[in-house]
Structures are given as C-alpha cells and as structure tokens.
C-alpha cells in the first residue's frame, strides 16, 4: 500500500470512516503487535497495547498532519504507550535477579542464531535494558527505521538517538557475552538497567 493511499485512508478516517480505519489496522497490526511485543516481552500485553494504539489513532486522527509517514505517527503512539506501560509496571525492577542469572546462563551466545536458548537470553537481556535504550535499538535493529526516522518517532535529537542505539547495542552484546561466560549476569543486568555499563 503506497503512502499516498495511506494518506487518503487517513483523510477518510478523519471524517469518521470506520472501513478506512479497518484497512489501516489491517495494514499495521502485525508490525505494531510485534514491535510492542519486543518492547514488553509479553504477548497479551502487546495485543492490548496495540488495540489501544489503534483506538488512539482513530480518536486522534484529526491531529495527524501528513508531514511524516503514517507509520511513523502510529509508531510514536505505540512507543509512548509502551513507555508509559513499562514505567507503570516497572517490569525491569520486578524481575528477580536470581532468575535473570539462571536464565541468562542457560543458553549460550556462541550457539546458532536459531537456538531457542539464545532467543531466551536475548529476551532477558532486552528486558533488563532500560526503555530509553530498548526503544531506539528495537526501532533500528528490528523495525529497520533510520536514525532520523527514529528521532522523529521518539521526539529526540538525532545525536541522542545515535548515542542511545550505540550504547544499547554495547550493553546487549556485553550482557550476552557475560551470560555465555557464565558470569554474574544478574548483577550486571542491574547495572545496565541503570545505564552504568
């Protein structure tokens, strides 16, 4: 679906057209659910937040201006919701450090990329990463947005986005390497969480 067509659909949504809204939901549902799943690590929560995202798209449609791609605007709404949810649930702080340690050392970083252990490690490492690093890293490395687009989505200067992506990647990599080495990953994840890697 071309951007021009999406803009036309959005114009119809602004007029209250639910059929056009349904088409936009169908276009973005998988991407948004996956994006929110990567951020929260909880599928049910991701689906719930995705629904809330599209509800906001419908009710805030009149505020949308076609100066940026529609997808970026929807991602902005989703990121803000995820950020609020992560702050509210403080998931990072409620993960017992012993569990983090055990899960991280269960798999190995050097194994195959299809290894479920690696996926589990990565999931744990992402969960231990502060949202300020997690969101830009996922937008860049999973969603494939450019740094300029990410800056527009999370309303942050490009320089800050670059720094956060770089720092987030370094933290992830180090965490996974330390998990592979069997070191005190639980303690380290606490440090990453506070951005003191």
């Amino acid at each position: 679906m071309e951007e021009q067509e999406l803009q036309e659909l959005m114009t119809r949504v602004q007029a209250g057209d639910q059929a056009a809204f349904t088409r936009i939901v169908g276009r973005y549902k998988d991407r948004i659910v996956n994006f929110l799943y990567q951020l929260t690590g909880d599928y049910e929560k991701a689906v719930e937040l995705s629904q809330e995202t599209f509800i906001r798209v419908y009710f805030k449609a009149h505020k949308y201006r076609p100066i940026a791609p529609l997808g970026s605007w929807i991602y902005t709404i989703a990121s803000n919701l995820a950020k609020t949810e992560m702050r509210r649930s403080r998931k990072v702080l409620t993960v017992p450090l012993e569990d983090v340690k055990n899960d991280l050392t269960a798999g190995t970083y050097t194994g195959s990329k299809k290894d479920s252990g690696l996926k589990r490690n990565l999931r744990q490492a992402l969960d231990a990463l502060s949202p300020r690093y997690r969101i830009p890293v996922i937008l860049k490395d999973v969603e494939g947005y450019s740094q300029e687009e990410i800056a527009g989505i999370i309303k942050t200067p490009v320089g800050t986005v670059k720094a956060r992506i770089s720092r987030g990647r370094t933290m992830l990599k180090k965490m996974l390497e330390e998990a592979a080495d069997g070191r005190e990953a639980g303690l380290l994840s606490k440090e990453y969480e506070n951005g003191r890697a």
Partner: protein
Amino acid sequence: MEELDLRRALKTVQAPPGFEQMVLSRLREVQAGAAAVRTRPLGLRLALAGGLAALLASFVLINVFVLNPGGSPADLADNRPGQGTLQSGVVQVMDRVDYGREVRNISGDPNTIYILEQVSDNGTYADIIY
C-alpha cells in the same frame, strides 16, 4: 550489532486472528461510553451547574460582606481624607449637621451667629449676597 541480527534472533509474533474486529468492538465501547457521558440527563447537568453557581455566589458574598466588609487595609489607607479623593478629582462632601441641636447645646454660651453659605463648585463668592 554485527555478530547478532536482532531481527532474526528475536522471536517474532503476529496479531491474533480477528484483531480488526477486536479493535472495532473496543472502539464501539469507547464511543458508547463517550455518548453516555454526553447524554447525561439534562436535569442533572442543570442541577450541577446551579449548585456550582450558588457556591460561587456565596463565596463572593461572604468575601465581600462578612470576611472583608471595609475592604483591605490598603483600601482604607487610600480613602483617608484628602488623599484618595484627590486622585479622582471629585470632592463629595456628605456631612449631616443638626443645627437645632447645635444651637440648643450652646444656649448658655454667648450668642453665636451662624452664617450659612451655599457652597457650589460652579459659583463664585461674587454670587453670594450677605
């Protein structure tokens, strides 16, 4: 991340079947909730508005007549004789005198002649005839 491709390494998920219908039904719920708020009984809304207006009016009246009947100290200072009135440029004299009582009270004193003059902003002394 050169060694690790996050897109491949992370488990990917998709929206559940019927996701659009879930969103639409939730949208209708939200719209119905908003409509219920809009169509709240007129009497209730009027009663609320009246109650608030009465509260505001009583607040103003209490402030003016009970808590602060003479105005603030600054207001009183401004109204001292010969100061506050000069600013407005208008002199208003409201001084009631009971001349009969004055005469009775001084009956024991030597006779005093009261000359009553008409005081006017417009007139001159030449207009007064003794």
